[in-house]
């Protein structure tokens, strides 16, 4: 028989789905700004391997001569990005959800086993509760990255008034590089995240919209067996 298991709180789902378009707008408007002086390259031993970004990239996204627009959007949506992130962190603290999210000592070792399992190299995944070790690391890192974007962003936005933030970021130049690198990080996170969500399937996807999962359990014939219920908390899918 099926049972309904509550999984994600409303606050988590709300902030997740608000963040998605807001972050997309931040990245897009950030590119409009970056375009004005596209200075970054990956250079090793004097060889430029990649230039952020090839001209075709800008043309494809229609990113030309739109610096003023980019800044106007960026410095408007930054407020939503910050407030939404703040609300999410507040929710995890107040609800105690952080306990499921922050990596444990064992997480760093276990995360490799999760990765090997996901790549079908290892047959079994380590036991887990709501989030596996790799997820704990990923979902905590992304919050730290979000904070990093705000921090490095302020360092670039008001380098005189918040000179100490700029100093902590290693100066104006380095703050810009960090701010840019974090954005590259979001894009990579997004790609892996989407692949994992597709692989995890419908039940998991629904839980981030509707909040619950449906679990198939062998019939519970006699009420006394309900003492075994804690076992149900293990997520049989292993992925989310």
């Amino acid at each position: 028989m099926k049972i309904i298991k509550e999984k994600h709180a409303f606050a988590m789902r709300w902030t997740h789905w608000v963040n998605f378009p807001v972050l997309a707008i931040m990245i897009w408007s950030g590119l409009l700004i970056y375009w004005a002086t596209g200075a970054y390259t990956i250079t090793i031993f004097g060889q430029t391997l990649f230039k952020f970004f090839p001209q075709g990239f800008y043309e494809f996204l229609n990113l030309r001569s739109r610096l003023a627009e980019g800044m106007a959007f960026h410095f408007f949506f930054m407020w939503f990005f910050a407030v939404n992130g703040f609300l999410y962190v507040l929710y995890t603290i107040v609800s105690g959800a952080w306990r499921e999210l922050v990596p444990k000592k064992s997480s760093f070792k276990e995360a490799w086993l999760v990765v090997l399992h996901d790549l079908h190299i290892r047959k079994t995944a380590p036991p887990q509760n709501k989030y596996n070790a790799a997820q704990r690391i990923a979902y905590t890192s992304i919050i730290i990255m979000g904070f990093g974007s705000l921090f490095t962003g302020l360092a670039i936005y008001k380098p005189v008034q918040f000179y100490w933030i700029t100093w902590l970021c290693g100066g104006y130049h380095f703050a810009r590089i960090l701010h840019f690198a974090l954005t590259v990080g979001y894009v990579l996170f997004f790609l892996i995240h989407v692949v994992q969500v597709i692989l995890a399937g419908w039940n998991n996807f629904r839980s981030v919209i509707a909040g619950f999962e449906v679990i198939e359990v062998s019939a519970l014939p006699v009420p006394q067996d309900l003492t075994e219920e804690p076992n149900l908390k293990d997520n049989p899918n292993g992925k989310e």
Partner: protein
Amino acid sequence: MEKNNSNIEQNIKRRNFISFTTFAVLSASALGGWKWLYKAGKEEMGITARARSPLRVAMNKSEVFFRNFFSNNHLVKTYPRSQAAKNVRINSRIGLEKEGFNTEEWELSVIKDTNDILKLNMADIKALPKTEIIFDFKCVEGWDQIQHWAGVRFIDFVSHYKLESQSKMQYVGMKTPNSKYYVGLDMPSALHPQTILAYEMNGEPLTLDHGAPLRLIIPVKYGIKNLKRIGTISFSNRRPGDYWARQGYDYYSGL
């Protein structure tokens, strides 16, 4: 048991329906909100222009918020002279178009009141105490360069010429002699101890491309506010016109 099972099925269906409908409605409204914002009308030509009206409101609100953090004690970082660029970047010549401009004939007009204009020449300005600054000049486009400038601090200029009553107003406006480039500055930024009316770069008189004979160096603002070749200085309680704010940029543009 059977009944229980079908109850659960019904419950799942009901909750799926409610959640996904809500999700779809909210997504559609978010998309609608975005389209509204993206297609929002541009401002009419005024003190500021060419930004989407709601975004201009947001810029002005952000200015109000971030002005709370402004302080004369927050100074731009300065560098040793050896780090100053020898080849100082020229990004724009807007306002410098007039061919045959003669720095010798140049005069600075300080509009103290409608009928009270103070006319000054370079000797008057050079007679005031000279201040040097070597700082990281930041362009709104994203580049920056360590540059070495020298001239008279605006605050010293104001006190020497007894412009106290003018400096109680909220804004300063500056224009090139041909009025083609102009900036508006909030008074606290103009009176910041690092704001300089500069006449030297790397220890030499300014070249024409860098705004000879006198230009503004205001490290608490982006480069767009650092007007070259000052012709007129005026004071006002209303925002003076600003060249780049009329191209959709933030009026404040403070760092």
